[in-house]
């Protein structure tokens, strides 16, 4: 596994560690952490802030029955049912696997253009459209600009745009006004996780062909 070169900014890791990051962004950060030992360790260290603040809290007396109530609930706990993941499921980081391979209705790959397939993930939030994109080897995606933020994490293979090559685990943030034209690597297909904040505008005069890019369809 290569070491990712593009990481979430520290503020995002802080919000992830503090538990204030939105669901869609958290899924993207978690996917990156799967590949990135560096950021995993950083989050471990960040968690120590929460840990210290917790241990320095002024203890508050709890109801005297609380312990018994917890113990009786523990006695009534059903056996935990572990979801089993086989090798194919774990092709993707766990939160992605849960939303894709283990989803109640497994998302379908749909053709978005001649070189891009998309599978929408159901995430229980509506601020971002979260999806997997599959770009075929050497496939070109339409040139587009963003009217909102887009987070992308490369899960398999690699792609490039005007400024860089992105490989497994790389975390990319596109902001409003950024324009780019991602291209799949020649040597194989590329699968990315993405979270898209708002519809993106096409800058190609043939944009109408690429209409699905425009559809913001939070699920």
């Amino acid at each position, binding site marked *: 596994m290569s070491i990712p070169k593009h990481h979430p900014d520290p503020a995002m890791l802080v919000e992830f560690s503090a538990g204030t990051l939105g669901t869609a962004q958290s899924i993207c950060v*978690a996917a990156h952490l799967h590949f990135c030992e560096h950021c995993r360790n950083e989050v*471990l*260290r960040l968690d120590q802030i929460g*840990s210290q*603040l917790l241990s320095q809290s002024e*203890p508050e007396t709890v109801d005297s029955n609380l312990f018994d109530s917890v113990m009786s609930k523990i006695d009534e706990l059903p056996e935990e049912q572990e979801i089993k993941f086989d090798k194919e499921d774990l092709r993707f980081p766990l939160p992605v696997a849960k939303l894709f391979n283990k989803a109640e209705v497994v998302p379908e790959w749909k053709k978005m253009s001649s070189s891009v397939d998309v599978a929408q993930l159901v*995430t229980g939030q509506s601020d971002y459209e979260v999806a997997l994109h599959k770009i075929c080897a050497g496939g070109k995606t339409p040139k587009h600009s963003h009217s909102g933020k887009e987070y992308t994490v490369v899960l398999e293979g690699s792609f490039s745009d005007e400024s860089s090559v992105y490989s497994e685990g790389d975390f990319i943030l596109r902001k409003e006004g950024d324009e780019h034209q991602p291209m799949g690597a020649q040597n194989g297909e590329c699968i990315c996780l993405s979270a898209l904040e708002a519809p993106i505008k096409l800058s190609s005069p043939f944009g109408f062909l690429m209409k699905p890019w425009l559809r913001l369809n939070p699920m």
Partner: protein
Amino acid sequence: MLGTKIANFENKPKPSAKMGVLNSEKRSDQWSLLLVDVGLNRSRKSFAQLFAHFAPLLKSFAQASRHEGWFPGLSEDLVQEVMIKVWQKAAGYNPEKASATTWIYTVARNCRIDMLRRKSNTQHLPLENEDFWHEPDEETPVTLLRQKRSEDKVQASLAQLPPEQDEILRKVYLEGKSHAEASEELGLPLGTVKSRVRLALQKMQILVAPEFRDELL
């Protein structure tokens, strides 16, 4: 509690560097030992001790929350949920990776998020917050020595942060404010909030490789 923990470290004679490594390879604070005992042996006695120590801290943590939709009446519910999770998940606790307090903090954070989501969201929730945290087992373990050093560093330096940095970390970690919400509340530009957080992290040596972060802020 925390006081005892610090005192324990301080009372120990300074070991030679080599001994230091050996000593640090075992995590021996009492809460971590108790948590391991709960995981391995399902010890109710150890669990009761953990409860006595952590439940009042967790209640205080819960009461500090200023999340939208949160009210003080939820505090003991949270304590309950966290302690049940601690019992359920204790077998997965790895003392090599984190102290018991850090592990319990992450359980509490996750429970708090899930409680808030359950309250505010009628949509089907396919993920629990803890799903974000499962990592494949083949990952390289962080050496305990490195972790331990960093814990000590965070503990010592957190107390010495300038008040404005301390305030923001509390807002973010305890009150549960995003950077954007903190900036609004304090009447500060978002950039100022982010740079205060960043300064605090640098002081605590949490950001170890700032060179690849330079494009930010």
